[in-house]
């Protein structure tokens, strides 16, 4: 069937309102509720589309077709569901108003899954959350109850702000912008900037929150030399830094993190038994 061909006009003139988009936004937050290995977030996406489908398609056959469309496999980073949702809502609205977009809808969903997942995973999951959580955890380890609160505040303002605004954004701007999103300068700038901030914070975390200490002492005649003090004289927190660098090198060699986890327990056992390390 040719795209854009005017096919059915019986329910032309159904306009979606801001309220409909908001209702889809609230429902989109249940994105992972029915996640499964067969079709991932498909049912979750349909759940978000339900009020839209209900309004756009009064008759049972059309509803059935729309439900089937949105029960096809779908999976992306949860944050990025919303701009896609906005785009798809716009397409369903066109479809209901006589411009046939049925085939294109799934193409768009599948086409946007990959690039958006990459952005969401690296920007939100991989950079913003660790920075906020690292800040909060560092404060908490100093005994401040404000740590967890700060983390929740920073995250939720940015995260919900993005998810709420990106539904109408996707609805207005649609496919072209999202398809270009990965190439576009804005996203690149954002992730570059976030990485700069993240790496500086990470430098502090490595210095402050890895604890590897040696109780080894040497007796040189009358004086007692503490190995830890000698190391701190060279570079403070030298052993944490070395452990970190070694683990980065091993991860770069594509060694499975679970093996490294077991490795850490083995090294800790050996070095604590020979009394080279102590808590």
């Amino acid at each position, binding site marked *: 069937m040719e795209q854009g061909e005017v096919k059915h006009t019986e329910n032309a003139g159904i306009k979606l309102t801001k309220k409909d988009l908001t209702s889809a936004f609230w429902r989109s*937050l*249940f994105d*992972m*509720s029915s996640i*499964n*290995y067969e079709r*991932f977030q498909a*049912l979750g996406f349909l759940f978000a589309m*339900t009020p839209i489908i209900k309004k756009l398609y009064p008759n049972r*056959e059309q*509803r*059935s077709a729309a439900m*089937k469309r949105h029960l096809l496999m779908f*999976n992306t980073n949860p944050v990025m569901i919303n701009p896609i949702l906005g785009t798809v809502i716009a397409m369903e609205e066109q479809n209901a108003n006589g411009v046939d977009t049925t085939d294109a809808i799934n193409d768009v969903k599948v086409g946007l899954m990959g690039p958006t*997942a990459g952005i969401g*995973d690296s920007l939100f*999951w*991989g950079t913003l*959350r*660790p920075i906020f959580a690292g*800040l*909060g*955890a*560092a*404060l*908490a*380890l100093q005994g401040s*109850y404000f*740590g*967890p609160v700060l*983390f*929740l505040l920073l995250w*939720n303002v940015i995260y919900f702000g993005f998810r709420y605004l990106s539904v109408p954004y996707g609805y207005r701007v649609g496919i072209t912008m999202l398809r270009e999103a990965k190439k576009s*300068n804005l996203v690149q700038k954002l992730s*570059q*900037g976030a*990485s700069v*901030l993240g*790496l*500086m*914070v*990470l*430098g*502090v*975390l490595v*210095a402050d929150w*890895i604890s*590897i200490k040696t109780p080894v002492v040497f007796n040189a005649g009358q004086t007692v030399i503490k190995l830890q003090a000698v190391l701190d004289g060279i570079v403070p927190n030298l052993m*944490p*830094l070395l*452990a970190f660098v070694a683990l*980065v090198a091993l991860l770069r060699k594509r060694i499975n*993190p679970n093996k*490294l*986890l077991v490795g*850490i327990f083995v090294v*800790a056992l050996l070095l*604590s*038994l020979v009394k080279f390390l102590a*808590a």
Partner: protein
Amino acid sequence: MLGTALIVGLVAGLLEWDIYGWGHTQVNRPLVVGLVMGLVLKDPAKGLFIGASIEMIYLGVIAVGAAIPADATSATAIAVALAILSNIDPKVAVALAIPLAVVAQLLQMFIWTINSGLMHRADKYAEEGDLGKTDGLQYLGSFMFFLQGFVPAFLAVLLGAAAVGRLVNGMPAWITNWFKVAGGMLPALGFAMLYIMMGNNKLLPYFIIGFVLAAFFSANLVAVAFLGVAAAMIGVSVMSAKKTQGPAEKGV
């Protein structure tokens, strides 16, 4: 103990629900779970410490694509509950959370598998055009994840609190030392994973700046974060300046 077990299970289940029921507010992160569980069991300081320590380990562990990462939510809930109820050394409790997180991850994979069944029921409703009915399937799938948080935490406290307390408190010193040393090292792995994710060699200088500020000058993390924002702004404007100069430049 039944009442306490019910409360701990309920809190664990509700927090576990964050990803699968109420929208990724991050109350399922160890940092938050630790404090909440500590408040519920009336030892917030201990909960805060254990939660924040576990958070450091799992900072770099994220879900990428269709992979399920180790689930530290119910693991933190159980570690904090056992540490408070059985009076276990908080540092040992942190190390205990690691295997628990692996078990929780396996449970999650199990639910991802059985939830596939929902799809076939949904297909049937779609065939009939019964729009409202698919909502119920969504809620059912969601509830499974509540159970995934509730059941292990409930059982751990009901059956385990006394026994684990005896076991851990009767451990020889070398084992507790081992766990404490391992617990101190573990964040290194979380940080290394984070570095792999965010870093490339071009950005290495920023890591060095952060490390030096903290290690040599004992700089406060919040202060460095502000410097980081400034550095990010400079970096971005340098990037745009280059963009406008050289039309031949391809992506950075």
